Each structure stands twice: as structure tokens, then as C-alpha cells.
């Protein structure tokens, strides 16, 4: 349960793995995870394989991540989203802001 961050130094990509319920209770953990290696200016991937449920504050946190990386210039990938979660992200038009695999 929680956020697990993996930094690949070769590609300079940070992968944030979310498992369990992605809601506001995770916000501190999530923020710590993406600010930790920020000095290296990595790219970010959010892996939702283990995510069971999301609520709207999760969307808010993703947007904060995006802002942190530079807003419109950010290229953040969201991968392995379970079917329904993927649908919810699409309905929220997040495919316009994130690269949803």
C-alpha cells in the first residue's frame, strides 16, 4: 500500500508505483516520492498496476506532479492502469495532459 519510487539513472526516469487506494491520504508520500530525485531533472512515469481505487484528489495530485515538472512542457507517462481506472482518466480528459499508455 502506498507509493514506491524507482529511479533509473541510465534513462533518468523516475517510476512512481502506486498500490492500493490512490486518494488524498497518500498525498504526502506521493509528493516526497517525486521531489526526492528532482534535482536530476528526470522524466516521470506513473505505474498504476497495483492501484485499486482512485478519487478526485488523486487527479489533483497528478496535476501537481505535472506542474512540478513544468506544466505544459511536461511529458509524464501513465502506464498499466487497470481498465476502469483508465476509463476514468479518459473521461476526465487526462489523456490530453498525460501520455496514457
Amino acid at each position: 500500500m502506498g507509493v514506491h519510487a524507482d529511479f533509473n539513472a541510465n534513462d533518468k526516469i523516475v517510476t512512481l508505483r502506486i498500490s492500493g487506494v490512490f486518494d488524498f491520504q497518500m498525498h504526502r508520500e506521493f509528493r516526497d516520492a517525486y521531489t526526492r530525485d528532482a534535482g536530476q531533472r528526470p522524466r516521470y512515469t506513473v505505474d498504476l498496476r497495483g492501484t485499486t481505487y482512485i478519487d478526485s484528489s488523486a487527479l489533483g495530485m497528478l496535476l501537481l506532479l505535472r506542474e512540478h515538472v513544468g506544466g505544459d512542457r511536461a511529458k509524464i507517462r501513465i502506464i498499466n492502469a487497470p481498465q476502469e481506472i483508465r476509463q476514468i482518466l479518459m473521461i476526465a480528459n487526462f489523456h490530453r495532459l498525460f501520455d496514457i499508455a
Partner: protein
Amino acid sequence: MHAMSQADTQPVVHENARLKILVVDDEPTNRLILESMLRREGYAVASAQDGRQAIEDFVADPPDMILLDVMMPVMDGYETVKAVKALAADRFVPVIFLTALTDDDSLTRCLSAGGDDFLTKPYNADILRAKIRAFARTLNLYSELQEKRRELALHNERVRTDYELSENVLTSIVGKNSFESDNIQYFSSPKAISNGDIVLVGMTPDGRQQILLGDFTGHGLSAALGALPVSDIFSAMSAKGYGIRDIGLEINRKLHERLPANLFMAACLVELDLNANRTVVINCGMPDIVVKPAGSAAAVRLASANLPLGIESDESMDLNVHSMSVQTGTRLLLCTDGILEGRDSVGAMFGPARIDQLLQANRRPERLFREICDAYQTHTQTGEQHDDATLVEIHCDEALRPKLIMSKSSGAAAGRSEWTLSLRLDAPLLRRFSPIPMLIETLATIDADHSRRVTLFTILSELYNNALDHGVLCLDSTVKDGPEGFSRYYSHRAQALATLQEGYIEITLSRCSTDGDTTLRIGVRSGTPRICRDPHPNVGPRALATHGRGLHLVRSLCNSLEILDNGRIVEAVYVA
């Protein structure tokens, strides 16, 4: 507008340049002398030998001026001038008689027949030249005048069209909005509506009646421009169950944003909640609102305590409201200042004292409205009619009391309910845990349908959190902006929740089938004895941009989402 023929147009001429002069004389020598003189002056010349030829020439190639002999065969000068002047119609064609007759009678006859001047033969060429030049100047003046007249006619036409358009718009707004309400009567002077008085009536889903009486500065088109957004905002918000104060603030915001500074609307806003025996009254720059209770109790006057709508910017704007309890039988009287200022033949105003008198004298309350209207009409019929005078009476009628609190949900009719689950959490439970995961598991068990659990979680948790944050904890969402804000908001929330003493949330889930479709109805109600200033700030379009994302998402996920009673009641319908 009719097409203007060549003969009608008065050309603009400079003093000598190319004026066309027609010389009419039966003596060839006379014609020759005049022609050469005129050509030397720079005029264009034509000549005719008698009246009849003159008329033919006049029609074929209209001259600007005519030099006319009196004694001619076939048609003499007098007849000719009459004919020519008739043909010229609105155009000014100066006719100068050249006559050998010197007696006063003949000369006078020249002018009476229609001639503009005369010269006796043998004439002085210098004087003739001078007279022609003088007439040329007059011709210029005439053509300028004609041009101005044409512009004015065009302009008037345009103004009239605009006015008709605005009249149409305004009458359709008022007509559409009002009067299937039996408890409301209104009287308007003939030009009141097209001059910017509007009356709007709405009923919220939970049975509150809302009335707006507005008086725009400006008339006609400018009033119509203001009335359109006001009417749309009023209908939309009323249908969604907003309070009358929120409606007033939104109208103020729109008018302030969209219309120029000198355009605004004085207004009376009234909300009648017969279920709670309460009325909310807001007076923005209008005459006193009179509240007359049933029976012999004295009337109360509620004076204006706000600026008219559209003046103050949103940040500094607040509305002072009168909130009072009312019993059935109470009558409220609203009017625009045209009523008070209506004058009689000596200029005396109708005035508020007269209304007081009528209130005192009234014996049968149901006749009060009629009595005031009659008195007003009698008073003003001899004097100058004030253009916009409107009077509205709202009667707190027992029949208005709603039977149901939650009416109207989409597809509400013949649904067979398969099961209903209702859960009420008071403060102690709200402090301890969120019921959503448990509800989702329960749903999975009852429904044996696991397919949309994730989506349902998102929907339920959003509605629950909204109700908790705004309906019970009374938190301010705007704090959520930015990464710091986000953390701060949630620690604030945790604190508020840990110390929560009062409030409740009620969740109702119900599986219905209608015509083979099964739907899940979700209802979330919240309440707290505390005054939450803005119980549901996420609902307006403004909020969507910053932090209203959640409800927007829920709206997209559900088949319908209704927010009633200012956010205290939310109903969603979900079809998998």
C-alpha cells in the same frame, strides 16, 4: 425607402460651375443674347421657344434654373411656371421671369404664379448675373438640407427597428418566465416592459418560490441586453435549487462583468419558503418593500440596503438580506419607482404615503392589489404617464406549501425499487472512518455485480467527501490551490474532523428498474447546525477551473447529477 429619380436629386453645385440654365423666350435674338452671356459666365445652357417646349425639355434634361419670358404664344410664362413647379415637386428650381411688362400688377402676378424673381426688360446684365449667383447659393443650401433629411429618415428607421427588436426580446423574457403562479399578481404601465422593468418567477425543486422584480437604467435595447443574461441566470439557478442570495450575487457578477459601468439594475429579490414559514427579502436600490401580515397587524417596510446589481465588483460585493418568518396570508408588495413617481395633472406624485393610506383603509385583503392599481391609474390618467411603473403582489398562499421535499429526479416515475440501503452517520462515526469502502463491498455482495466497483468508488467517495468537507466541516476549497495548499488543506481537514462535534451525513443507495433498465440512485444529504457560509462552493462554473474537478468528474461519470438546496442534497443516477 423609394428609389430617387434623377429629377428628385438636388445636386450640390458650386457657384458658377456647370449649373444648367434653361432659357425660355419666343424671340430668337433674346435667346441668343442670353445664351452667349450665360456661357461666358460658365453655365451650361439650353433654350426653348415656348412654354410647351420648355416643359418637354424640363422633363428630358432637368435644368437647375430657368429664365422665363412672360409673353409667349401657345403657353405663356404664367402657365409655364405653374407646370414646371409642379413637375419639380420637392426639388427647388428657381425661376426668374424676364418681362417687358413693368406695371405692378403684372410683376406681382409673376411671383404669385410661382416665380421666384423677375427682371424687367431691357435688363441689366450685371444685375441678372448677380441674381443668378444668389440663387445658386440657395440651391446649395437646399441640397444640403435634402441630404440631412434623408439621413435623419434612415436613422429614425433604424432606431424604430432596434426598439421593436428590444421590445420583442423583453416581452418574451417576461412572458415566458411568469405567470402560471396563482399567488402572484402584477401590474405594468404600457411601456414598462420595453423600458426595462422585468419580472421573473421561479420555483426550486424543493418548493421555494423565487421572485425578481428588476428596473434597468436605460431603456429599449440596453435594457434588453441586460435582461437576457439576468433571465437566463435566474431560471438556471432557480431550477437547480440555489438560494436567492446566490442568485443575486451571480447576477451582480454577470452584469458587472459584461455591461458598461452606467448600466445596472435595481432589483427586489424575494424567496418564499412556505415549508419553513420563512421569507428572504433583498432590496437593491428599489422603493421600500411592504410586508403586510394577515389580520390587523401593521405593515412592515423593508428599505433598500444594497446597491443596485451590476455596480460592485465581485470581491467587495455582499448582499444584505432581510430574513423573516411569515404566516400564510401575508402579502408582499414590490414596485418600481415609476409607481411612486406617477404624477397627476398638477404634477403631484402618487407617493408612498398614498400606499400607506390604502393599506390602512383596506378591508378585504384580496382586494388590496386591485385597490392600489386603481388608485394609481386614477391618479395618473390626467397627468404625464410615467414610462415604467410596475407593481407586484406576492401572496403567501397555503396552496404553495409543497407536499414533497425531494421531487423531480430524472426518470422518477414508475421505478420498481429492488433494494434500498440507507446509512446515517453522525459526528462520532464521521470522525472515525469513511464508510465508502464498506459500502462498495456491501454493494458487491447485494448486487453480485462487480463490474463497476472502481467507478462507483470514485463517485461515492467524491460525493461523500464533498458533503463532509463543505456540508459538515465547512472547509474552504480555495485553500487547495498549489502544492502547499493541497497539504495545508488536508491537514486542516484532518484537524477539523478530529474535533468534529455536530453534523451528519446520510447516504441512500437504491437499485431501481424501469422498463428493463436498472439504475443505481445515489443520494447524499448533509446537515449541520453550524452556518456553513458556502455549503457547496464547487458547483458554480467559476469553481470548476480551480478545484471543482471532482464534481465535474462525477457529473461525467453519472447519467445525471442534481444538486439541491444549496448543496445540502445531492442526487446522482448511475447506469452501469
